């Protein structure tokens, strides 16, 4: 019986030794590049816009978003982000940040959610949404992901998200798990976080929303997921639809205890 752990340990050592040194330096290079960019992360510009939008009176009801309840009581922003998605009593639904903001925009300001959900990413009300998620996530920067899991709906969404995560389909027979189900995988030079367990501080779920340098845009989790569906050659999910919230619940609950660095900066 004692032999087994020794064998396992030596096998791990062999694997570690066979990993080429070059691979590590490429990942290090990317990390260094991100570090350099962090100093002037343009996500700050979106944060400033979002904070102003939160306080500005808009819509048919000429109201601000300041009375919006993100889960910690009306108007409480700090710490709200690391506990989303969660179940809300007033809508009797599990909502992520974006879908919750849609509820507040509709109820407080009288704005039609369709002005967001039917809009293309980066334009009009979608651009406003990006500002809001940037600012709200920044208010919880450095805090640990801590999604509530006690409500039956939260449990149901987690299980639904898990199913969606492992669901294979499309022309390439892909699932989320095809890319995000193992440690140490890459796409080109980007490390792919393993989202089946806690990927760690500031990685995976704890890194979004993020500013994409290559496109000069701020991507919310909704947009991140939308693009994952595109890469899988799946039909695009509806904005703030149940499957997107379920996937966010699955990833968020898995990431419990990870430090949120959102909005971060990506290549």
């Amino acid at each position, binding site marked *: 019986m004692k032999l087994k752990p020794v064998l396992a340990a030596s096998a791990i050592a062999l694997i570690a030794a066979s990993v080429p040194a070059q691979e590590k330096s490429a990942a290090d290079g990317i990390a260094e590049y991100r570090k350099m960019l962090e*100093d*002037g992360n*343009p996500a*700050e*510009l979106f944060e*400033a*816009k979002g904070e102003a939008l939160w306080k500005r009176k808009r819509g048919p009801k000429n109201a601000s978003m300041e009375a919006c309840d993100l889960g910690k009581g009306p108007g409480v922003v700090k710490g709200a982000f690391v506990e989303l998605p969660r179940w809300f009593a007033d809508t009797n639904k599990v909502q992520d940040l974006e879908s919750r903001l849609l509820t507040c925009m509709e109820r407080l300001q009288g704005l039609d959610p369709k002005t967001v959900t039917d809009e293309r990413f980066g334009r009009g009300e979608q651009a406003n949404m990006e500002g809001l998620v940037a600012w709200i996530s920044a208010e919880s920067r450095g805090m640990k992901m801590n999604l509530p899991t006690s409500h039956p709906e939260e449990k149901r969404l987690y299980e639904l998200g898990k199913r969606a995560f492992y669901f294979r389909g499309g022309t390439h027979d892909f699932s989320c798990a095809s890319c995000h189900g193992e440690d140490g995988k890459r796409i080109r030079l980007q490390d792919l976080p393993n989202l089946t367990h806690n990927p760690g501080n500031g990685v995976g779920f704890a890194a979004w929303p993020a500013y994409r340098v290559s496109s*000069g845009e701020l991507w919310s989790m909704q947009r991140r997921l939308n693009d994952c569906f595109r890469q899988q050659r799946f039909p695009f999910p509806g904005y703030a639809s149940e499957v997107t919230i379920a996937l966010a619940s699955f990833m968020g609950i898995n990431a419990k205890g990870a430090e949120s660095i959102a909005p971060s900066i990506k290549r």
Partner: protein
Amino acid sequence: MPDPMRIRAQVTGDKATVRVLMAHEMETGQRKDAAGKPIPAWFIQEVSATHNGKPVLAAQWGPSVSKNPFLQFVVKGAKAGDKIAISWKDNRGETRTDEAVVS
């Protein structure tokens, strides 16, 4: 009106490091839209900085500067409480000026 800049100015010794993030599309004029029509050039052409009202930097920029540009420079002799103001003007004639206090 253009979106505000983010300006941070911090003293280290006898100088202050100023870091500026500007919100701008910085279109080169070389790109085409989905319909195949060229997207008109739209970029910042002039940038200037003042320290307590005295000019300390003047720059001419072109279309090769990135979207949402980041600018960093050092002002000698700047002390905590001093005012740093940054202005830009783009090729459409739009301008934006923001001010920060050195800390």
